[in-house]
């Protein structure tokens, strides 16, 4: 029960960080700055918000358990918006929220799979200096 609650919290944090990251980048795109500047500003803003959210949730979910995956989410989610706009997919706020939610859940799933891979790799073989 406890593990399930922590996992739910992890997923919620990733959805939140991804959604906010997507919305921030979407908002910055509206300013029609040069592309590189938009990317940097969007990712910077997303990472700032991510850091604050991770710090706020660290007491409940763990410091490393919040900081690490949410950092990845904060990097990936703004980039996803940039790719969407480059592919000429015009997004509104609703589409951004949906994209952020899907990205957050997707990243949670990836981390769960990676966690399982790590557990199995370490259980199966004695430590040989690397997890490949």
């Amino acid at each position, binding site marked *: 029960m406890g593990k399930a609650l922590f996992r739910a919290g992890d997923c919620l944090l990733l959805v939140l960080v991804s959604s906010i990251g997507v919305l921030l980048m979407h908002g910055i795109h509206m300013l029609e700055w040069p592309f590189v500047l938009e990317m940097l500003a969007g990712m910077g803003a997303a990472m700032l918000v991510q850091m604050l959210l991770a710090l706020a949730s660290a007491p409940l979910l763990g410091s490393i*358990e919040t900081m690490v995956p949410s950092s990845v989410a904060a990097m990936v989610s703004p980039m996803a918006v940039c790719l969407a706009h480059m592919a000429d997919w015009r997004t509104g706020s609703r589409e951004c929220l949906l994209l952020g939610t899907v990205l957050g859940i997707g990243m949670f799933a990836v981390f769960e799979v990676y966690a399982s891979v790590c557990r199995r790799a*370490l259980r199966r073989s004695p430590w040989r200096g690397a997890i490949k």
Partner: protein
Amino acid sequence: MNSTAWEWRARLYDFCEASAIRRAPAKRRLFGAMRGEVLFVAAGTGGDFACFPPGMAIRAIDLSEAMLRRAQRRSRNYAGDLALVKADAGLLPFADETFDTAVTSCTLCSLPDPARALEEIRRVLKPGGRLLLFEHVRSRNPLLGAVLDLMTVWTRRTGTEMNRDTLGAVAAAGFDIRRVESVYLDIILSVRARKPRIA
């Protein structure tokens, strides 16, 4: 870090480390392998004492008086013999081959010279003695490793390195690593090692 910095860190430590609930089951499993005379490096605010198996004889060290003051309160609740000692992990005030078990918990990330501390731990452990580590290390995954490298840029200011190769350091110090368990990805690990019986 100077003593003022540690005073502030001691005040914030328990707030930031409330992840104790999440990590407690893994710590209890690891600490359950304690045997005989135990050295705990470094006590911090004593948040880990609740995960110790009862009835052990433990000497817990820390360099920071601020941390030890907070740990003192928690040590009273421990159902065993738990003594707090102000000491430097790099210069342990114990004779060679004193302890049967040495334990660290998120310690090696915060020491200025972890190699030196591991040498000292090896010195004070009896041949065949156990080293139990609950540590966070740099992930082998390139993306997560890069994230931890980036985090280290600002966590270093608070005295914590997020990207240490702790397993490599333990092996280089001459310990036999027997078991490594994943607590969180390949970042937070529970490690059991032994000091070889033959030098």
